[in-house]
């Protein structure tokens, strides 16, 4: 009995939805029309040179302030290869090491005191999301969201360590040649079989050189 009531309730709730669907089908048959605004991408990337400033915030013993540079080649509007990315970290101690020593007479062991100084990587980039944002209903800015996955060595302490990086980022264009990126990457550093985790936040300026002839051979533009 309870179940019957529940069924009636569901049917009653679904009823208001039914006529619109039915009339839509009646109106256009099986295939509903779809409306797209098809626009040429306002900004396209070719050769991207990147300069940025980042931070390694996770290690309790130091905070790394990282100056980075990179070069990315964009195969298309979806795929790109960050051929080379490198960074040098200027590390600022948090005082924890001294505090531990002073208070408890202990020092970090098993690599705990090692600091990342140099980072290098090469990564694949996919850019599935592209969109525009309205600012104060007065202007529109264009943005894309991308995902990266790459490998590369890091100098941690006195040794180069292999690392994998995974991350995502957003780009905001201020013109065809200049855009601003916010990257969030996680480095898995293999000092042993169990990787250590290091988060890397980066803000960078990207300078783009886009050669239309190189990329737009047979492109069909929307009318």
């Amino acid at each position, binding site marked *: 009995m309870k179940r019957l009531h529940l069924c009636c309730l569901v049917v009653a709730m679904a009823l208001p939805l039914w006529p619109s669907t039915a009339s839509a089908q*009646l*109106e*256009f*048959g099986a*295939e509903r*029309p*779809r*409306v*797209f*605004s*098809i*626009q*040429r*991408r306002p900004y*396209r990337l070719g050769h991207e040179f990147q300069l940025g400033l980042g931070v390694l915030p996770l290690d309790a013993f130091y905070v790394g302030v990282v100056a980075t540079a990179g070069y990315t080649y964009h195969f*298309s*509007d*979806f*795929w790109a290869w960050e051929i080379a990315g490198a960074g040098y970290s200027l590390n600022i101690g948090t005082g924890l090491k001294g505090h531990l020593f002073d208070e408890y007479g202990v020092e970090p062991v098993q690599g705990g005191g090692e600091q990342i100084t140099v980072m290098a990587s090469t990564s694949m980039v996919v850019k*599935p999301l*592209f969109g*525009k944002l*309205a600012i104060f209903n007065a202007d*529109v800015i264009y943005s894309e969201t991308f995902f990266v996955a790459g490998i590369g060595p890091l100098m941690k302490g006195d040794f180069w360590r292999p690392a994998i990086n995974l991350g995502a980022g957003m780009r905001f264009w201020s013109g065809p040649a200049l855009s601003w990126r916010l990257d969030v990457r996680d480095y898995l550093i293999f000092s042993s079989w169990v990787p250590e985790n290091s988060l890397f936040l980066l803000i960078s300026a990207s300078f783009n050189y886009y050669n239309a002839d190189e*990329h*737009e051979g047979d*492109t*069909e*533009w*929307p*009318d």
Partner: protein
Amino acid sequence: MARLSTAAVCCAAALQWVAAPSAVFAQEKGEAGAAQATEAKAAKEATEATEATEATEATEATEATVEAEAESDIEVDVDPEIFDLALEDFYDGRYAEAAAGFWGYIHFGEPAAENYEWAQYFLGECLRKLGFWHAAVLYYYTVAATRQQPEILPDALGRLEAISRRRPYSESLVLEDLLYDSEFGFLPDYLNDWVQYVQGLYDYRNGFVDWAQLHFAKIAKDSPYALRAMYVQAVFALKNDKDDEALAMFDTIVDSPIDAPDVKNRSNLALARLLFDTSRYSDAFETYREVEQIDLSFEQAELILEKAWAAYFMGDRRTSMGLLHALEAPSYEGFFLPDAYVLRGLIFKDLCHFIPAKRVVRSFRFRYQRSLEMLRRRVPMARIPGILDAGTQEGQVGRRTAFLRTLEQERRLIEDYDSYWEDVELDKHLRRVYDLEIREQSRLWNIEFRDSSDGAALELLEVEEQVNLLDYEIGLDIFKRLKADQARRSTEQGLTIPYDSANVYYEFDEEYWNDELHSYKYFITSRCFESNKGP
């Protein structure tokens, strides 16, 4: 038979359409003065122009009398220091106080006073800064018309020239009364170009073509007014059926390196309409894309509709329907564009979507039935919903409507400064000035509205006829018999959306973005059986 009737609807639509650009040309011609759609219209306009001139002269005479009366109300000795104090207020940014000072100097002083014209000019400046544009124009006009202090003339004319480009203003006062028949002697180049252009324009309007050309020849070649003069000549060529000559001139304007976006835009529009009228739809569509209009304005809506027609005649129904889809944006809802229904209905019918086509017919009736009934009952045009808007949304009457609105806004603004001005009665004086101008502009508006509303009503009746015909055609098509061997669906390319493309596909999600209005594509499959009428 069905096809024949379809063609008839298309022809009717096309004919109606041809009339529409002509009407718009007429507006342009009205502006250029030399290319009215018909001689009758020209004669009518000339009559109105005479009436308007007479009326304006009468108004000015009345204004002058009012001013004279006002000035003769009280006769007191005016301390010349008032001018200096008002000037100090002006440079300190206290424009209301400064206006009171300058007005006191003018109102209570003698016209022969040393700084009388300067006081008039600065009063104009104060009023402009306070937002009384029409009153400011009156004082700049007075300074420029009397020319007792020639050194102020370029400044006053410069202000008038700038206002003429940016705001609604009394065209009869500035262009006809001040500039047309006047000799100003030496003027800076840009003002000289403006004066020569206006004098040439009015000579064209009055049929003195040789004199007009003499004026236009005196305009510097690199001046934006040189392009405007060429535009006038192009429209004149159009009027005289010299389409090729007009086309060449419009092309020259568009390709000119001179920075004159306004006239280039108008030329692009005229060019596109000319190409459309000569059935060069692809070229017309390309040219329409060069035209820029203010976002969400009536002109933009009109442009979108014209593009939709061009796309339709090109056979690109997706683009045409996409543009019509843009016209459904709420901002365009109030505009009078009845033939958008005809086009939408035609496309649905062409694609054998008969129920949507019928719904278009129904929506047209739902939207305009009341107006049509009122038209048949001969209700005054200004009381018919839609016709009032339709009659005032473009052309001379549109400009006058905008000017009237400005006048009313400015008149209301006087209240804000009552406390500053009541001692010298500047508020009273300004109210009188605005009341007179509003009365005169309303009189002219009524004359112009009579014509424009007639045009809108006629257009609505014509579209209704087309819609009725379309309705009948749809009915015939629904019950059209097919032979068995014809009963197959046409094969058409399905919609594929690439994931990696130089184009971005934003699917419409009940939200209109201004930057997308021109780029919608409406993907709909044809349901026709017997032909390849793919979209």
